[in-house]
C-alpha cells in the first residue's frame, strides 16, 4: 500500500465559510466539554462528594457517543471534502479506540489492585502484590508452558493441512464434495464440539472411540487420565477444528502457483518428490508463514474446548492461560489478579509475535 499521496486524486474546490467552520469547532468542543462535565459529575457522585441521582455510568457513555458523532460531523463541516474522506476511517477508528484503549488503561488500574467483586470492600490498590503472587503461582507458569506446547502442535497441523491441500489440488473427482466435507469442522461451535467429541465420543465406557481403542486391545482407554494424554487429546480436538482453516489458505496459495513451473521442473527430470521440495514448497513459503502466524494467533486464544471438556484437569495439566484466568474469576471472582495475569500474557504475546514476525520477514525476503 502506498502511503505517499492519494491513490485517488480528487480535486476539491471547497469554499467553506468561516461561520460554518466555527460552528463545526463549536460542536466538537462543546460536546467534548459535555463529556468532561458529565464524567466529572459522575466521578463526584462515585466518590460521594455530591449526589446527582445517577443510577449508573450510562450518561457518560451517551455523552461520549454524542461527542463521537459530533466529531465525525464536525470534520465535514470544517474540512469539507477532505473531511468527507476522513469519514471513511474515522468511525472505525473511534470505535476500536474507545473499545480497546479505554478498557486497557482501566485494566492496567485493576491489574495492580486487590479487587474481589463479591466482597464489599471494593477495589484496593495493592501495588506489586499481584506480581509477587503470580511469580510463585505454579499453575500460571504451567498454563504458559502449555501454551508453548499447544503452539508447537501447529507444526503437525500444518503438515496435515499441507498434505490435504495438495490432495485437493490434485486431479480428483468430486472436488467440491471433499472441500465442503473438509471445511465443515471449522463451522462447528467449539462448545458443541467439546460435547460431541470430548464428552461423548471419547467417553470411557460407551464412546465409539473408546470402543475402537478396546477393539485394538487397549484395556482401559482413558483419554483424560494422565496429563500427557489429556493434553494430546485437547491438541487433537483443536486441530480437528482448525486444520480446515490452514488447509484453505494453503490451497489458495497452491492454486496461485502457475502450472508452467511444475511442468518445467518435470521436463527437467524432477520426480514428484523433488518437484515438491524444490519448486512447490519454496514457492509456498510466504503463504505458509502467513497461515502459521494467523494460526498461532488463534491458538493463543484457545479456551472453549478446555473449559468445557476438562476444566483444566487433571490437576491443571491441560489449562490454557485463558481457561485458567476464566476459572480464577469464576471460582474466586478475583478481578485484580486475573487482569494482571492477562496483562502479563499480553506482554509475552506481543514480544513473541514481534520476534516471530521479524524472523518470518527475514525468512521470506531472499526468496520472494
Amino acid at each position, binding site marked *: *500500500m502506498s*502511503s505517499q499521496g492519494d*491513490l485517488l486524486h480528487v480535486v476539491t474546490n471547497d469554499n467553506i465559510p468561516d461561520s460554518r467552520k466555527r460552528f463545526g469547532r463549536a460542536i466538537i468542543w462543546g460536546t467534548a466539554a459535555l463529556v468532561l462535565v458529565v464524567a466529572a459529575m459522575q466521578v463526584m457522585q462515585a466518590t460521594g462528594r455530591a449526589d446527582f441521582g445517577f443510577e*449508573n*455510568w*450510562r450518561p457518560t457513555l451517551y455523552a461520549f457517543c454524542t461527542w463521537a458523532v459530533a466529531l465525525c460531523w464536525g470534520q465535514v463541516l470544517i474540512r469539507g*471534502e477532505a473531511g*468527507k*474522506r*476522513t469519514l*471513511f*476511517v474515522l*468511525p*472505525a*477508528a473511534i*470505535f476500536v479506540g474507545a473499545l480497546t484503549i*479505554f*478498557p486497557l488503561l*482501566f*485494566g492496567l488500574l485493576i491489574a495492580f489492585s486487590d479487587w474481589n*467483586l463479591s466482597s464489599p470492600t471494593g477495589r484496593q490498590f495493592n501495588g506489586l502484590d499481584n506480581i509477587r503472587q503470580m511469580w510463585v503461582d505454579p499453575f500460571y507458569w504451567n498454563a504458559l508452558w502449555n501454551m508453548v506446547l499447544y503452539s508447537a502442535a501447529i507444526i503437525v497441523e500444518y503438515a496435515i493441512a499441507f498434505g490435504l491441500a495438495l*490432495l485437493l489440488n490434485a486431479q480428483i473427482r468430486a472436488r467440491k464434495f*471433499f*472441500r*465442503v466435507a*473438509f471445511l*465443515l469442522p471449522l*463451522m*462447528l*461451535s*467449539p*462448545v*458443541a*464440539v467439546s*460435547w*460431541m467429541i470430548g*464428552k461423548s465420543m471419547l467417553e470411557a465406557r*460407551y464412546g*465409539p472411540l473408546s*470402543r475402537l481403542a478396546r477393539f485394538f486391545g487397549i484395556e482401559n482407554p482413558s483419554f483424560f487420565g494422565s496429563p500427557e494424554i489429556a493434553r494430546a487429546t485437547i491438541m487433537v480436538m483443536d486441530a*480437528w477444528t482448525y486444520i*480446515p482453516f490452514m488447509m*484453505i*489458505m494453503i490451497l*489458495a496459495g497452491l492454486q496461485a502457483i502457475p502450472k508452467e513451473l511444475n511442468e518445467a521442473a518435470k521436463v527437467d527430470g524432477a520426480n514428484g518428490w523433488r518437484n515438491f521440495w524444490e519448486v512447490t514448497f519454496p514457492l509456498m513459503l*510466504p503463504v505458509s508463514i502467513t*497461515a502459521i502466524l494467523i494460526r498461532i494467533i488463534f491458538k*493463543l*486464544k484457545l479456551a*472453549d474446548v478446555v*473449559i*468445557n471438556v476438562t476444566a483444566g484437569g487433571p490437576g491443571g495439566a491441560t489449562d490454557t492461560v485463558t481457561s485458567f484466568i*476464566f476459572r480464577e*474469576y469464576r471460582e474466586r471472582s478475583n*478481578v485484580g489478579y486475573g*487482569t494482571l495475569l*492477562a496483562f502479563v500474557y*499480553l506482554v509475552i*504475546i506481543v514480544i513473541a*509475535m514481534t520476534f516471530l514476525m521479524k524472523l518470518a520477514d527475514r525468512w521470506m525476503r531472499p526468496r520472494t
Partner: protein
Amino acid sequence: MTATTQIFRDSEADRRHRAKWWTSRIAIYGVLILWTIICLFPIYWTITTSFKMAPNVMKGNMIPFVDYTPAWLGWKSLGLSPDTIWNESTVRAEFMKRFMNSFVISVTSSALAVALGSLAAYGLSRFSYRFGWMKNSDISFFFLSQLILPPVVLALPFLVLYKELALLDTRVGLILLYTLSVLPIVIWIMRDQFGSIPTELEEAALVDGLSIWGAFATIILPIALPGMVAAFILSLVLTWNEYFFAALLTSTYANTLPVMVASQTGSQGISWWSMAALSFAAILPLIVIGVVLEKYIIKGMAAGAVK
C-alpha cells in the same frame, strides 16, 4: 493358422506406468475418504445419537434402522419432536430464546463490523491520512494488531465496565464486543478486496460528477459485494460460535446458544440423546451455511493469503 496376435500392445513401460497410476489413484482417494470420515463422523454420530435410547447408547449401536430403531427421545426433551411440537414446552421456549439471542447478536455484530470495516478498508486503500503521528500504514497496523489482542485481556475490564454501565447481560454489550473482535478480520479481507479494484473506475465516476461517497456507494460497493459477503459470513461463523465473552458477560437474559449447550453439558450425565439433539440443533444453521455458502467462506479465508 491365424493366430490372434496382438500387433499393437502396450510396452512394458506403459503397463508399469498404468499400475503406478492406479496405485496413486487408490492412495489419493483412500486418504481423501479417510479424512472425510474423520470430518463427518462426529456430525453423523451426533445426529444418530439424538435418535437413540438408553440401551442403544450402552450397546454402542451405530446405524439407525439397521441395528436400532430411531426414537424421538432426544428431540422430545427439547420439545421439537413431532408429537410435542404443538404443545407448550419450557425447554423449547428456552432454546428458542437462546437461538434468537445468538441470531440477533451474530447478525447485528457481523453487519456492523462489515459496515465499519469496509468503509475503513476503502479509505485506507484510496486516500492517505494523517491522524496525529499516525499515517496510513500505522492506522492499518492499529486495526490489524487488534487480532493479536487475546480476548482474556479485555474480558475482566469489560466485565467491570459493563457492570457500571448496566450493559452486563444485554445484547448490546455482546454486540459491541463481537464487532470489535471480528473487525480486524473484516478489514483484512476488505483491504485485499478494494486493493484489487482499479482506481480508474472512481476517477471516471468523479469526472461524471459523482461525489466521493456517491462513487463509493454506486460504483465500488456492487463490485466489492462478493468480498463483503465473504467477510460477513466469516464474521457470522466466528460470532455464532463465540463462547468465552458470552459465558462471562451474560447470565440470564442475553445468553447465547453456546452458553446454553455448555451449561447442559455437565448436568445431563449419560442422557446423551438430549445433549445430542441440543448440540445438533446448535450446529445445524452453520452446517447449512457451510454447505450452501462454502464458496464465500473459502474466498474470505483465502483473501490476504496470496499476495
